[in-house]
């Protein structure tokens, strides 16, 4: 009985009693060590520098839980940090909610908590409040995580779809498709060995630097689910303007491209977890690229296109490597491996 307790999650771990207490005090607090969380109050009391805040939430259900370059824990922290970052804010605090399936191994939970802790520390953000629930075996797929985040808006940030204008340039801080193809490479039925590595990382350090040192950033978004294609279509639709990007200028790791080719996937539709797209004024594009390229997360930053006039309806177009043109559609939402 005691051995079971140590090895796997029991329903009682989510019951709010002794086992929950044990879990929090012996496994969670030591890793996510900060005064606010240690109070274990019903709500965290925060002193924020500004009344202008950004607030976001995301849930994480990625499979496999562990992948080259990260894990569900790291993803849960970085993903929410990035939503705050691209909104022009500096992340101040995160919440952490865990829904764990009965029988989940403690060893794996420890690894995930380590991932969360490292990512929070690396990005200078505290997890200040949280929740744990357990569900019966079969009612959840191992573990689901939700994080919510609050950030203080930077004075220098004035971001909005309505600021975007014809002639603005589109930049991205690095290669696309890395995260999604890494995950896919480790999925059941598709598994293949590779050097692929997720680009999972917190971008707030880079985005804040960009916003503090240049004036021309008008809008940012992180191309997660649906990839670059979804993000550019959202920007086009939201601004009412058209987008033109150049295939030759989109940074892609050849290994990632080859993996996508083997499965028949379109890299533009594949998720990224350490990338952001920024719409910047033409005059500021060189400064923006310089700032990005000096930062570890922006070494391969590129201008991939620009905002152009709309003819009948806003559209995203790609200029191909041979000088042709095609439309980039909003993806369906699921890439299927093909042989044709």
């Amino acid at each position: 009985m005691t051995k079971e307790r140590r090895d796997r999650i029991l329903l009682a771990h989510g019951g709010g009693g002794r086992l929950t207490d044990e879990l929090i005090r012996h496994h969670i607090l030591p890793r996510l060590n900060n005064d606010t969380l240690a109070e274990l109050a019903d709500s965290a009391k925060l002193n924020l520098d500004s009344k202008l805040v950004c607030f976001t939430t995301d849930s994480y259900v990625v499979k496999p839980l562990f992948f080259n370059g990260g894990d569900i824990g790291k993803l849960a922290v970085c993903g929410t940090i990035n939503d705050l970052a691209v909104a022009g804010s500096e992340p101040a605090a995160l919440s952490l909610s865990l829904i764990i399936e009965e029988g989940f191994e403690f060893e794996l939970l420890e690894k995930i908590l380590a991932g969360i802790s490292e990512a929070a520390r690396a990005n200078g953000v505290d997890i200040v409040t949280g929740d744990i629930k357990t569900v019966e075996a079969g009612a959840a797929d191992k573990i689901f995580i939700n994080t919510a985040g609050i950030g203080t808006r930077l004075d220098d940030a004035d971001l909005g779809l309505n600021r975007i204008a014809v002639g603005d340039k589109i930049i991205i801080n690095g290669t696309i498709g890395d995260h999604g193809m890494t995950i896919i490479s480790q999925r059941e039925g598709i598994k293949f060995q590779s050097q692929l590595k997720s680009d999972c990382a917190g971008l707030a350090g880079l985005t804040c630097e960009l916003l503090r040192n240049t004036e021309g950033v008008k809008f940012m978004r992180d191309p997660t689910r649906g990839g670059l294609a979804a993000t550019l279509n959202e920007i086009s639709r939201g601004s009412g303007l058209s987008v033109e990007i150049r295939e030759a200028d989109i940074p892609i790791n050849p290994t990632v491209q080859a993996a996508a080719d083997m499965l028949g996937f379109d890299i533009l539709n594949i998720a990224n977890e350490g990338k952001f797209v920024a719409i910047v004024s033409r005059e500021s594009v060189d400064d923006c690229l310089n700032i990005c390229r000096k930062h570890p997360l922006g070494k391969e930053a590129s201008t991939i296109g620009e905002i152009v006039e709309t003819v009948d309806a806003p559209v995203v177009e790609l200029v191909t490597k041979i000088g042709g043109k095609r439309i980039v559609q909003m993806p369906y939402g699921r890439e299927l491996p093909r042989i044709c």
Partner: protein
Amino acid sequence: MLEQIYKAQRLMDAACKKMGRPINIMEVCGTHTVSIFRNGIRPTLPKRLKLLSGPGCPVCVTDQSYIDSVLQLADHDDCLIATYGDMIRVPGKSGSLETKQSSTNVKIVLSSEDALQLAKDIPDKTVVFVAVGFETTAPATAVAVKEAAAEGVDNFCILSGHKLVVPAMRTLLSEKNHNIDAFLCPGHVSVIIGFGAFAEIVEGFGRPCVVAGFEPLQIIEGLGAICQQLAEGKAKVQSIYTAVVTKQGNTTAQKIIGECFEAADGYWRGLGLIEKSTLKLKDKYSRFDAVRRFDISEIPAEDKSGCRCGEVLCGLIEPPECKLFEKTCTPDTAVGPCMVSSEGTCAAWFKYGRERCR
């Protein structure tokens, strides 16, 4: 690369001038259709060179009765459907394999070997492998059937939807569409059958046939080579996909196809019954044939929806000429396979082209 593109474009311009009328070239391969769109090749061609998309999309030319049979089998508790991802979203009368996937009776596989392995791993289920594709993919199915026979994997069977390209080209020219001046022939089918297989199209119908790969430069150079032939009033078989295509093809693969399959008459969506155009398992392997195991009838479904996929597949109309295109028929609400299949002309047109890229 630019030099080669200009050279090909000059050949195309010269041919258009010489012929004094629009030139119609049919690309008989869904992967060519998609590559042409994805690389934005159409706008780089002379206006009088028209590219017709042909019936080379295995999903598109699969009759609806085939999909309905698969969906019915997916409902059997003791059946497990193993399929390439291409077939997942094709609609039948009662939904698609995608809507059935939640019942876990459907598994996406990357290879016929994966399907066979599933049968070995789950002996109390009958694994039905959805075997669609042209001559490129048929050998893979044949290998799996042979291995199943050798190893006694009796809970494995295939529903063959394999089709042959040349009989379809023959039917197109003789019955459906006489306005095809030449063919851009499928690169990877040719790896298997050899470019010599297209000789009968050249000799029987006097149409140039050029085999090209799928990179944009290959396609443009292929079109250039076709135009050169047309301008010279010639018709011959040619291959520019020299890295992998030979005249005789992959004889091992051809032999394996011949061991397991025989050519049978079969229904092609849009083209109707074509003689000796589909592959049926030989009697020797009948126990691995889902048609015989489950007594599946092969009567083609009657389509009353107003879908004009058939005419699209023959190159007779372009997708915008179908009343349903973009209105009731979109990738998310597809009526016909040409819109659902990732290689379908309608899907490619909707996804990459439409008016802007004409």
